[in-house]
């Protein structure tokens, strides 16, 4: 098992190095930041001065090494557009995104698993059928449309909830939180539902499919044939087996919540990292794009790693097969 963990950590490092290379190549080969920063009216002197300032005049290997060294220290250079250190910009925006992602994730998992089990067990009931039909609409509905619809209903028509921003936040020095004020909490509701709805639908449909698959298995028939109560068959036998494959996808879904936050943050003008990233793409602000890419990769890789290790906790077959693989 230890060997497996080490191998997975090693693989994760390689993925990160590859992503790092992509990020660095973006710096080196994509676009000319000078173009973006100075516009059409520029002199050769301006260009040379800026090149030196940004370190773009140095040879490739030097730039590469410096990039890696800086990245490890959390230093991603200066935003071409805002002229401030990228790390600083991201640090002040990260709490907004993380709080939003946390609430959405909680929402998606709770309702996803609950509704998935419900629709699998009441397969042909009208409630389950309605939920399934709605979920297809949910999957087809682009996130931004969900957001717009919610804004229209709850902000424009009912005027209950704010349509943009985080509300009042409390500054804890290293973190700003919207959890501590009423307006902050109210501001979280619509974006969290918007962001979590799609993931919730996916988790729900996956749980349902897996559960139906498990319910068809021989050991479930055997459990029924032994006269176990429905509750025991469903929750003791079926749900546990269902959750094994669900954990991977759910883990990855939590990762994508951070990525999908880009869309929600745009709709709700939520001052998070996603909004920062989309603006960076619009203005080809390479340092911000690269930093975002690196950060999100680290997060995805960590999530993947944790999900893989969680398997060991749940599936006894893996625990034994790895250590003593004898017949």
């Amino acid at each position, binding site marked *: 098992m230890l060997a497996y963990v080490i191998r997975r950590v090693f693989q994760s490092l390689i993925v990160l190095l590859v992503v790092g290379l992509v990020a660095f190549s973006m710096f080196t080969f994509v676009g000319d930041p000078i173009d973006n920063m100075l516009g059409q009216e520029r002199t050769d002197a301006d260009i040379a001065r800026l090149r030196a300032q940004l370190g773009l005049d140095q040879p490739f290997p030097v730039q590469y090494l410096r990039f890696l060294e800086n990245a490890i220290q959390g230093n991603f250079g200066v935003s071409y557009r805002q002229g401030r250190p990228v790390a600083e910009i991201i640090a002040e925006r990260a709490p907004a995104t993380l709080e939003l992602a946390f609430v959405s994730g909680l929402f998606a998992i709770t309702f996803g698993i609950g509704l998935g089990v419900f629709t699998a067990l009441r397969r042909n009931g009208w409630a389950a059928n309605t939920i399934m039909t709605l979920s297809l609409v949910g999957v087809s509905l682009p996130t931004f449309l969900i957001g717009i619809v919610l804004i229209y209903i709850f902000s424009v028509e009912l005027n209950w909830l704010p349509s943009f921003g985080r509300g009042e936040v409390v500054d804890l020095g290293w973190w700003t939180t919207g959890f501590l004020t009423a307006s902050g909490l109210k501001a979280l509701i619509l974006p969290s539902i918007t962001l979590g709805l799609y993931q919730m639908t996916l988790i729900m449909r996956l749980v349902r499919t897996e559960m139906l698959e498990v319910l068809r298995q*021989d*050991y479930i028939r*055997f459990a029924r*044939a*032994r*006269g176990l109560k429905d509750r025991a068959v469903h929750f003791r*036998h079926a749900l546990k087996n269902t959750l094994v494959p669900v954990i991977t996808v759910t883990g990855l879904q939590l990762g994508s919540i951070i990525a999908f936050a880009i869309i929600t943050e745009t709709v709700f003008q939520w001052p998070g990292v996603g909004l920062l990233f989309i603006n960076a793409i619009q203005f080809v602000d390479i340092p911000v794009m690269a930093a975002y890419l690196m950060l999100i990769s680290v997060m995805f890789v960590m999530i993947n790693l944790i999900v893989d290790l969680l398997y060991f906790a749940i599936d006894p077959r893996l625990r*034994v097969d790895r250590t003593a693989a004898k017949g």
Partner: protein
Amino acid sequence: MTDPVLSVRNLTVEIPTRRGVLRPVDGVSYDIAAGEILGVVGESGAGKSMTGNAVIGLLDPPARITGGEIHLLGERIDQLKGEALRKIRGKKIGMIFQDPLTSLNPLLKVGEQLTETILAHLPVSQSDAEARALAALEEVGIPAATQRLNSYPHEFSGGMRQRVVIALALCAEPSLVIADEPTTALDVSVQAQIIALLKRLCRERGTAVMLVTHDMGVIAEAADRVAVMYAGRLAELAPVQQVVQAPQHPYTDGLMGSTPLASLGQKRLRQIPGSMPRLTALPDGCAFHPRCQRATDRCRSNPGPTLAACNGRAACWHPLTDEDRAAREATA
């Protein structure tokens, strides 16, 4: 003879489909007495597993019982639902499935699966249930049973797993055991052990057994009586010696002729021409007539032969006699 443990009368199972109603089990009747092993044989699709599933109420929809009655220990059970049905399963009817690799929940320890079954049916404490679980494992011949209670199914070999499955099916001491192809998925070397184990346990406890299989060797080894099924109907029902040595239904005869059994001492194997008709396209009259050399016009017209309409043993208008068999031996 005392009342039978299981009594099936005119059982009919139907599956409505787009192309009409299929009848995988059609008017089947038989009894099983306490301590008796009834072998149910037939090709795949003959309706033998479906019969077993109907008895324990585990038909997969849209298949359902549309006719006949099933009595267990004098009580009618084919119309039971929900909680009443659950209380019979495991408690009065144990079921053993074909593949021991897939019948056990991979995520639960063997001991957990045994105790939960015992607790579901018997009014005993958790520690009593654990003691019984241990006894059940020992009884099916699993070595070091105390440690094995804490093992997961994947840590057992195929044969050992089937022993666990048998322990699970028998742990609440049911009166009837339905064993659906219990040895098919096992190595040949293990098959005989499992059959011997099943036979011994049921003899000791006086459990009635419905042994569903397509393997005539298993039947000859274990069964007291044999029910031969063909296209959803009973073709022949008789004690095992008679079925093996003096089959009356031409299909049974063909089945025996095509089975390499040392005990039969036959010179060469014969084969049955053609294949079993699909349930969507059953011929009129006797379902076997297109493959039967003895078929006459009567066989081709409705109503087809049934056990009751014929001699009570073979559903055939022209059952084989001893002379027929002697004549064939002479020409062979």
